């Protein structure tokens, strides 16, 4: 039997899963721990191919952590606005919509940041990411104004700013 050597990423995933297990069960009895260890090991083992490599992970450096916190804070505010906007459109008897697609390019480079951007677009006012192909985004907007705004969205500039800071450090 050949023993495969596990990477640091594997053990990191294993420990994170185990910690999560302990947090959820809230018990330290050895039977609970044993089942937790077996489950975390199994999940980490069978998903080895799709674990997040260091290059794919979002970087949270000391310099950028503040930016990330403010990013997610603004995102939550935007989510509230999004819901309010959609509620106003839906409950308006006239149903004032002009749906359509927008296609635009982005300067965000790292794949994980592109995923964050796509999800942010989906979560915020009247826009929904339909397709991401390399740096081209296809977004569906519910009103014309949303469609015009999304390609130069200020959240995108924030992500680019964070990437610039990461480049300076590495």
């Amino acid at each position: 039997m050949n023993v495969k050597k596990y990477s640091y990423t594997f053990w990191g995933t294993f420990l994170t899963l185990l910690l999560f297990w302990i947090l959820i069960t809230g018990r330290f009895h050895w039977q609970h721990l044993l089942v937790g260890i077996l489950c975390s090991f199994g999940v980490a083992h069978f998903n080895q191919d799709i674990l997040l490599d260091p290059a794919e992970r979002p970087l949270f450096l000391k310099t950028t952590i503040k930016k990330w916190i403010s990013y997610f804070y603004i995102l939550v505010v935007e989510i509230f606005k999004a819901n309010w906007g959609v509620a106003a459109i839906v409950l308006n008897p006239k149903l004032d919509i002009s749906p359509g697609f927008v296609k635009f390019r982005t300067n965000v480079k790292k794949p994980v940041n592109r995923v964050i951007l796509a999800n942010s677009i989906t979560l915020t006012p009247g826009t929904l990411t339909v397709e991401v192909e390399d740096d081209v985004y296809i977004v569906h907007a519910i009103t014309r104004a949303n469609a015009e705004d999304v390609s130069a969205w200020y959240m995108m500039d924030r992500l680019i700013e964070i990437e610039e800071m990461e480049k300076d450090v590495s």
Partner: protein
Amino acid sequence: MSFIIIPILVAGIFFFIVGVVGLLRLPDVYSRMHATTKCDTLGAGLILFALVLYSGFSNASVKLMFMILFIWLTNPTSAHVIARAAYRNKIKVCEGSYELDKTEGVQCRD
């Protein structure tokens, strides 16, 4: 405490109702996705947050916080998958839809 919890709970239910109304009223797949995904995010989020406040600082509230986190992570992803499937299968869009192409305007630095 209940005078804070009840308004939050009611707000969550309100957003769920808006989501359902939107699902029935809006014309095509994509616009319906807007109503359902957005209102699910805040509807479920607010209801779970009200429950967090209700259970106070305990093991249950930690679990509920994780539920909010995972809903907010998976909701846009699954919305994206459904929209993308619709787009690839060329599902009909409602009348008056347009297509803006802004790929020329922004230069790619690659």
